[in-house]
């Protein structure tokens, strides 16, 4: 668990972050969302003390981060940046092994861990271990970046726009892969993003920031259905509910029912597109199948009241 108490960063008279109080729950992914210049990256960097706060404090598992040496603190926190930051002179394996080496792990343990992590992020160790970063695509490089951040199995992961530099297709794939990884590892993740879709898709919770302060903290549903003010509503946009549907698949909403006569869709279709099919077909229910088998029925009101089922 990460706790920010009255956290403040000011440069001269200007506040980058002002009296920020926030608890990032353990084992959950919190998206730190907001427009550029709202202080989200500054906040992230104050957690691992890449930026020293001018006021307040950060508690990590109940301990003030100032009790640690900065290097020691950072070795215990995974860190992923947008520009990926792989060391071009080192192989993929050496990159992933960075923190274990700093921690003085023995060679065999490090090598085993590297292979384990490459497999976790979906890269065949035998194929990728000895490659240099210049030989990787953007998506592959950021997979390595994620593996590197997870190398020493830190309980906390800080990610600064990790998928921002990727093309939309690679971003989709990597977000999905990362969601899968997070489902298995349950790290306490803080993910800085300005991309609402990414926040809705990946965040268990969203902390929306505005001008150095917290505008709203809550689940995606909270922000969409109970916005704390005009800024939140405006920032998320009128189509926020649709955006949220885009991040989920039809099969998640299926209930048993009589599918006869209904238009048929694939269960892997995203829920927003399913809604589109309903509008096109002029119906409020669809038959959902997967692998040729009928799963059941998707109803308009289930999409509408998805919050209750989430």
């Amino acid at each position, binding site marked *: 668990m990460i706790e920010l108490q009255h956290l403040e960063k000011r440069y001269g008279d200007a506040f980058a972050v002002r009296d920020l109080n926030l608890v990032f729950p353990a084992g959950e992914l919190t998206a730190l969302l907001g427009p550029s210049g709202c202080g989200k990256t500054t906040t992230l960097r104050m957690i691992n003390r890449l930026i020293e706060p001018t006021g307040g404090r950060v508690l990590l598992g109940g301990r003030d981060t100032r009790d640690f040496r900065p290097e020691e603190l950072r070795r215990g926190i995974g860190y992923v940046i947008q520009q990926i930051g792989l060391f071009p*002179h080192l192989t993929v394996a050496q990159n992933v092994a960075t923190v274990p080496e700093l921690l003085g792990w023995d060679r065999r343990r490090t090598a085993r861990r590297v292979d384990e992590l490459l497999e976790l992020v979906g890269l065949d160790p035998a194929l990728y271990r000895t490659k240099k970063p210049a030989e990787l695509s953007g998506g592959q490089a950021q997979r390595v970046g994620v593996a590197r951040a997870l190398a020493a199995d830190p309980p906390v992961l800080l990610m600064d726009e990790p998928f921002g530099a990727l093309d939309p297709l690679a971003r989709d794939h990597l977000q999905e892969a990362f969601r899968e990884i997070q489902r298995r590892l349950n790290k306490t993740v803080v993910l800085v993003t300005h991309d609402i879709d990414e926040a809705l898709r990946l965040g268990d919770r969203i902390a929306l920031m505005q001008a150095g302060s917290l505008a709203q903290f809550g689940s995606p549903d909270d922000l969409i259905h109970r916005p704390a003010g005009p800024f939140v509503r405006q920032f998320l946009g009128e189509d926020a509910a649709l955006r949220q549907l885009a991040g989920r698949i039809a099969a998640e909403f299926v209930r048993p029912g009589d599918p006869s006569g209904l238009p048929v869709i694939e269960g892997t279709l995203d829920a927003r597109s399913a809604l589109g099919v309903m509008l096109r077909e002029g119906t409020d229910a669809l038959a959902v199948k997967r692998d040729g088998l009928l799963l059941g029925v998707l109803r308009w009101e289930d999409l509408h009241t998805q919050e209750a089922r989430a």
Partner: protein
Amino acid sequence: MTLRPLSRSTRRLPWDAIVWPTLLLLCLLPGVLPRLVGPLAPGQPLVFDPPLWQLTLTHLALVLLATAVVLLLGIPLAVVVTRPGREALQHLTETLVGLGQTVPTFAILALAVPALGFGWTPTLLGLILYGLVPVVSNGVAGLLAVDRNLLDAARGMGMSNGQRLWRVELPLALPVLLAGIRTSTVYNVGTATVGAALGAGGLGSPIINGLSQQNTGLILIGAVLAALLALSLDALLGLVFRYGDPVPR
């Protein structure tokens, strides 16, 4: 799509690293150079005391000693002035080091003699001041060219300042730094001939003697050997440094 680094077999064969040192050694065999140069300077005696190989070794020792000191001074200097918050110091250093190159070597040597006397000491001083320029400026350029995002990632993963320098900055700055070292060494082979005027010996001796005796043959021999030594060092350092580039290109 993947980019593969050039495999060693497709790399150019290092002909220059074979040809120039071989030619140099051939020219050092007793009697070879005088016989080649003799017809160009008829009637002039081509006698050497000490022998040519010894002059060449003295010359090489002078250059290598100067280069060693240049590395010991230049690399730490480049590191110190590129630490964050030292921009002013960095500009000052680059200006001062640049001065070393704009002031003629001969002037440096002439100024050094009254203070340090004749011989190796003033010659080394001149070579060091002159040789520092490419090492410091390339060192600074190489270190500054390291992507700031890499340094941020390194810091974020818990590297200390020293670890960041040794594991990230220096390896990445190495190719540019090595190019500077190569330039510095090769320049100084030429510059060191001036040392003979100060009694430091080396391949400048036949040139100086040739000038005072109006003996073209002597001048040619000194010049040819100095040039071959410079080409040999350049080729050999190039060969060594080619494997020092850590990033596949």
